[in-house]
């Protein structure tokens, strides 16, 4: 029976090619627009570290006070040097790291090669196990290296390719900003998007990835300047990088790993205790006003998914609804035009159920054709999204099997929905009335 209905559907669709083409195109455009914008939304709103996002937290400490924070009272997004160092020293989480973005120069070992700048991050050794950073060679430096301000470095695989031709370079030295550093590990193509660990000092999305990671304390010791944002309520009272370290300016990102609700509550308590202690020492003249946001809440707080992406998605889904309504109208016209034919079939003994089957199959064929054509348009859309969205975001949108499958499925579901009411009407055609009028 299915093959017969399929044959009927194809014959009916061939009868009015323009109308069929219109319906197929409508479905294809609607599905392609929504899937293209969704592919971008999916890419930017995805969980950057699914295995651990529920265990990573960003502490914020109010070292500014209500008078400076204004009516909203949100503590600064980053920490000042004093609080960052104190939280590291207290070491209350399973893993924790203070960090700041750097842009040091690398002087290649071979003579005649120009120095080049590379983006990087000054972090603690716990940064790597906390974020599950994969290593190609070697590993993180030790906690002892942190305290001894050792000149050690973890480099990206890309920088390893550039400097050492991709060999195991652990133990070799690199000149960074005029100082020699020993390579302790080479990361294995690690560039999480968004760069969730330090959103305040980095572009949210960046396909280039960071090249070097050096110990935080070493970076401070060699006065490796910070890149990114520095937020002050008053200019530092002392000059230079040391002045910044003695100021209440916020410029250091911080992340901790906490397993389970009890650890989270304990850390929150520790932070409030710390703030009260600072209050009693006279540094803060206000009660504790801290935040401990989990990674997903932090990503939302930092507006990782831009309003433009959300708006495009909403508008494209609106387009899809219009396409659905449009197809419903056209199918209704198409089906009811065949009221006579339906009347004859019903009079000859076809049940309502059979009419339902026949017309839903016809709608399904349109959906399938729209889906196939929509796949093509979605592919083109994802390829062309770089023309209308920032490169760093557009690069993240990919055509993959799940996107293609969903496109096809969406097309069929939308057409079936559009076909429901017209089919219902077709199945309730009164045979007697049709036979009488003709």
């Amino acid at each position: 029976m299915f093959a017969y209905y399929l044959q009927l559907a194809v014959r009916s669709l061939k009868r009015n090619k323009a109308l069929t083409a219109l319906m197929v195109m409508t479905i294809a455009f609607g599905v392609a627009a929504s899937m293209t914008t969704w592919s971008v939304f999916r890419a930017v709103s995805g969980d950057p570290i699914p295995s651990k996002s529920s265990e990573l937290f960003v502490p914020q400490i109010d070292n500014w006070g209500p008078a400076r924070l204004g009516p909203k009272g949100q503590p600064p997004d980053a920490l000042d040097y004093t609080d960052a160092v104190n939280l590291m020293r207290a070491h209350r989480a399973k893993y924790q790291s203070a960090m700041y973005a750097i842009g040091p120069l690398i002087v290649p070992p071979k003579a005649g090669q120009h120095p080049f700048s590379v983006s990087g991050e000054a972090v603690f050794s716990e940064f790597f196990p906390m974020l599950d950073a994969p290593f190609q060679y070697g590993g993180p430096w030790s906690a002892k290296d942190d305290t001894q301000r050792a000149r050690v470095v973890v480099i990206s695989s890309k920088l390893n390719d550039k400097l050492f031709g991709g060999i195991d370079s652990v133990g070799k030295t690199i000149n960074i900003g005029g100082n020699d550093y020993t390579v302790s590990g080479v990361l294995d193509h690690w560039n999480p998007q968004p760069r969730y660990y330090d959103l305040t000092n980095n572009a949210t999305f960046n396909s280039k990835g960071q090249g070097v990671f050096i110990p935080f304390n070493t970076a401070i010791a060699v006065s490796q300047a910070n890149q990114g944002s520095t937020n002050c309520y008053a200019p530092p009272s002392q000059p230079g990088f040391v002045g910044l370290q003695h100021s209440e300016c916020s410029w250091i990102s911080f992340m901790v790993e906490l397993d389970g609700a009890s650890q989270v509550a304990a850390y929150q308590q520790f932070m409030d205790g710390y703030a009260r202690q600072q209050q009693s020492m006279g540094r803060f003249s206000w009660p504790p006003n801290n935040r401990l946001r989990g990674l997903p809440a932090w990503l939302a707080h930092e507006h990782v998914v831009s309003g433009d992406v959300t708006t495009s998605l909403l508008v494209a889904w609106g387009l899809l609804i219009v396409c659905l309504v449009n197809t419903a109208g056209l199918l209704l016209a198409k089906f009811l035009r065949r009221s006579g034919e339906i009347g004859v079939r019903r009079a000859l003994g076809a049940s309502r159920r059979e009419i339902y089957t026949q017309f839903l199959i016809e709608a399904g064929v349109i959906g399938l054709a729209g889906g196939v054509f929509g796949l093509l348009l979605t592919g083109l859309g994802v390829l062309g999204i770089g023309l209308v969205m920032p490169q760093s975001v557009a690069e993240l949108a990919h055509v993959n099997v799940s996107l293609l499958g969903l496109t096809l499925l969406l097309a069929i579901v939308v057409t079936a929905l559009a076909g429901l009411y017209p089919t219902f009407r077709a199945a309730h055609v009164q045979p007697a009335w049709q036979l009488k009028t003709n």
Partner: protein
Amino acid sequence: MSMPPILTALRKHKSGVVLISLQIALTLAIVCNAVFIIAHRIERVNRPTGLNESNLILVQQQWVGAPTGNDQASLDKLDSMQLADLAALRQLPGVTDVAPVNSLPLLQSAWQGAISLKPHIQIGDKSSYDRVAFYLTNQNGLKTLGLKLVAGRNFRPEDVTHASFRGVMQNSPVLMITQALAHKLFPQGKALGQTVYLDGKSQPSRVIGIVARMQTPNVGPVASTFAWSSAILPKRYNGFFSMYAVRTQPGQMHAVMKAIKPALYKVDPMRVMGDGDVQSFATIRAAAYQKDIGMAILMGVISLILIGVTGAGIVGLTSFWVGQRHKQIGVRRALGARKVDILRYFQTENLIIAGLGAVLGIVLAVGLNLVLMRHIAMQRLPIWVVLAGVVLVLILGQLAVFVPARRASRVSPASAVRSV
């Protein structure tokens, strides 16, 4: 032409009427908002920065092994390196002016702060100060950037000082501000010669010049609240990096851009200049507004698809109705209706349906606008956009219905009796 027969006929096609009006309503709602977004983005992109943007180049570089100390000797050394660079750039054929800068409008890297009429402001108390973006340059800055001085005077060489990039904001006895900032600070006028305080410090600064317009470096939603509040300070900052603005003679920009890197490497090879470190202002502008232009294009494409789909949908459904009413049309024609009466009948019918859709569409447009306002910087939909949208969907309906309606008008009166 009387209305009741049309209304009676519409009542017989309730579902078709509902579907088309719903489609028109949704189209109106989405197109209104999309067009409003497009208009807003175009307006943003077309804002003049206040600079003479043609023949303007920005050079960025950093030194390798430059002094990192904060002592006067290190700063003097860094400053002499910067002056040597400026002199070398000035010597290049085709260059008319060169100035050290810390940022440029649209560069999206800003030194932002507070400007106030009193010292010691509280940054939580937004009424005590205005937000401002600081530009640091020397006496050549105005000419190099092509800014227009409307009152007062430019910096003199003796006004210009230098300091570490981390303390450069300290103590600026004189400054220039934009006219917009002058109006904000001194609504009664007479900003020239007045005293202001920067970043809540106790040292006063005197306004010696007012420039017509200079946009701030950032283009994001927060920065847009003080897009024209710029202050220009007579400073060279000393650090391991520096930035120069270069103005060239017309037609010489590309040649100068090619010559800049070799010239600077000749002065001092121990420096790093990447691929994007010599860029024209046009490149900076394109990068700053890429998102806005892209969003405008995307909204435009979606609107066009929507209008196309809805128009085609009306053609399709009306064609069906024409076919279905073939016999009735024949009867009307046989009873004396002219061709134009049939044409008007379908056009009026569409006007009623589109009108119903438009009424619902206005409600949906305002609703969608409220939803989108939560996601992007977007104002209330102005009434003219909604009315323009209503006119647009009514015209769209009339155009779409014309082809099937004309076919209906050609139905022969004889068909009233033929099919029996």
